[in-house]
């Protein structure tokens, strides 16, 4: 009995430890700016700037890339994805670009990308971006070819809806760019940003003591990829909670007008980001504060943003921006916390040998296993990332890991059902089959690159694969031209 209790409490603390380490280490400099960027994109980019390229009369070489861009720029939440998907399909450019949009949107939105980059590595995030866009366009074209006839019969309504001419204000563009800069300096690990330009030593012996106590309270095992909570991390978690509380007072009712809490919570976010960028190294008898390139970059961006919000943005823009950001945080963050906690618990239960046996190497089977796991398991937005990191620390190869990361947000029972109700069951399942195939290939290609194959060769493989597919689909279509495709 005592043994069971001890085991359960071990599991619990493993979960807590994982959660605390995540909040302290990964969340701040990547997720917080990413949430603000997502909010700014939703609030400040008029949808017409992208959707006007998705009308029925737009040439294909514009509408497909535009659909991919729309997936990246406009869709962070399913509220936007579903109507936009249905709209592009029914009244806009048709099935192909709609599928491209559907494929790209969940995989490469700004939140998923920056989180992947910070937690697992920029190379994987970039692979996720490039391969998702390439394959999204590929699947779109293939689906459009397979279901060509039905698509032509689709309602021939005018594309008035897609003809909007709204443009973005220059100030809003600059604002977004500074937010992106903030994210980049906060998360990229390059020399200029890592170098410390000067250091201050403070004789605060309490800090080191505090950190030692934290390590004892939340034990961790670096050999298993676990991370401890530092003194700085503990302060940051405290600040995060404060932000949450003040935002609840200040932003929840923002449509009634700004109040003092609105500004307090926004200022707190800035302060927290600056503090997180500082590198704090306690030692017995004191603490060393190092001011790195990252610190100055973050400081400068936060000051610029702090100046722009009250002086350059209109009241409506500021309100929409803060509201959308808060909405994303409210919607995604609680699920993420539960997910990260669960990952911490599960990690203790999985034996590394199992993972290594199935997906330790970059094989077709390993990649397919990653895809199958992604399709059958449904995790809320962003939770796939800590899960992927768990697999990585348990010995999964990066190829199958990418296959999993691409397929998991793409395909879940929920998304398959929604897709089926808009485009029909047959098309939806054909789409599922293509996504599985493409995710497997994406994992294989990236895995080959990780194993040392040159980038040129990988690109060549990719081109050959896409070329063969196009040829195959074209040949099948030509043979079947007389028999009409089966209706779902």
């Amino acid at each position, binding site marked *: 009995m005592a043994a069971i209790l001890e085991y359960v409490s071990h599991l619990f603390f493993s979960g807590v430890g994982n959660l605390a380490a995540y909040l302290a280490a990964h969340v701040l400099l990547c997720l917080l700016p990413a949430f603000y960027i997502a909010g700014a994109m939703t*609030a400040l980019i008029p*949808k017409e700037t992208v*959707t006007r390229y998705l009308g029925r009369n737009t040439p294909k070489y514009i509408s497909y890339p535009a659909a991919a861009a729309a997936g990246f720029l*406009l869709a962070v*939440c*399913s*509220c*936007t994805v*579903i*109507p*936009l998907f*249905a*709209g592009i399909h*029914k*009244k806009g450019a048709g099935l192909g670009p709609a599928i491209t949009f559907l494929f790209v949107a969940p995989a490469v939105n700004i939140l998923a990308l920056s989180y992947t980059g910070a937690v697992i590595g920029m190379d994987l995030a970039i692979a996720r971006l490039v391969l998702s866009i390439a394959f999204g366009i590929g699947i779109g074209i293939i689906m459009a070819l397979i279901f060509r006839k039905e698509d032509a019969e689709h309602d021939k309504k005018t594309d*008035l*809806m897609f003809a909007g001419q709204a443009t973005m204000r220059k100030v809003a563009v600059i604002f977004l760019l500074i937010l992106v800069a903030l994210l980049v300096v906060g998360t990229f690990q390059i020399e200029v940003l890592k170098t410390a330009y000067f250091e201050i030593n403070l004789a605060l012996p309490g800090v080191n003591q505090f950190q030692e106590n934290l390590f004892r309270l939340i034990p961790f095992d670096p050999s298993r990829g676990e991370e401890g909570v530092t003194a700085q991390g503990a302060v940051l978690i405290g600040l995060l909670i404060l932000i949450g509380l003040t935002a609840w007072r200040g932003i929840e009712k923002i*449509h009634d007008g700004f109040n003092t809490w609105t500004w307090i919570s926004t200022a707190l976010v800035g302060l927290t980001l600056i503090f997180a960028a500082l590198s704090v190294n306690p030692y017995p008898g004191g603490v060393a504060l190092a001011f790195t390139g990252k610190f100055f970059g973050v400081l400068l961006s936060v000051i610029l943003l702090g100046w722009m919000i009250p002086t350059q943005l209109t009241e*409506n823009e500021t*309100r*929409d921006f803060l*509201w959308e950001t808060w*909405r994303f945080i*409210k*919607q995604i963050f609680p699920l993420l916390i539960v997910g990260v906690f669960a990952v911490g618990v599960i990690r203790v239960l999985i034996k590394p040998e199992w993972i290594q046996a199935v997906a330790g190497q970059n094989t077709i089977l390993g990649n397919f296993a990653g895809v199958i796991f992604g399709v059958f398991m449904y995790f809320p937005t962003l939770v796939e990332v800590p899960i992927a990191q768990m697999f990585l620390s348990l010995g999964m190869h990066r190829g199958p890991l990418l296959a999993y990361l691409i397929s998991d947000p793409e395909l879940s029972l929920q998304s398959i059902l929604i897709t089926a109700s808009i485009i029909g069951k047959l098309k939806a399942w054909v789409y599922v089959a293509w996504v599985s195939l493409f995710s497997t290939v994406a994992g294989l290609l990236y895995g080959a690159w990780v194993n040392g194959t040159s980038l040129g060769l990988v690109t060549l493989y990719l081109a050959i694969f896409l070329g063969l597919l196009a040829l195959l689909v074209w040949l099948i279509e030509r043979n079947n031209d007389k028999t009409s495709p089966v209706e779902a």
Partner: protein
Amino acid sequence: MLQIKILGTGCPNCKKLEQETKKAVTSLAIEAEFEKVTDYQKIMEYDVLSTPGLVINEKVVSSGKIPSQGEITSFLTSALENS
């Protein structure tokens, strides 16, 4: 009597839009009938590309965002003048 429809599949912004619109209706002291449209086949019959959408007397006045109180009020008053 205005006919107001809120288009949206039930996401938080749709609820917020409904609250805001009801508030504007109350402060203008006008009569209005509210309907929530949650079936997106029906939503797609209107010219909206993203939800939440606000429809007054079958005319889409706003979509993809939550308009401010001032904007909602002016939508309502201009709809009243035209009816």
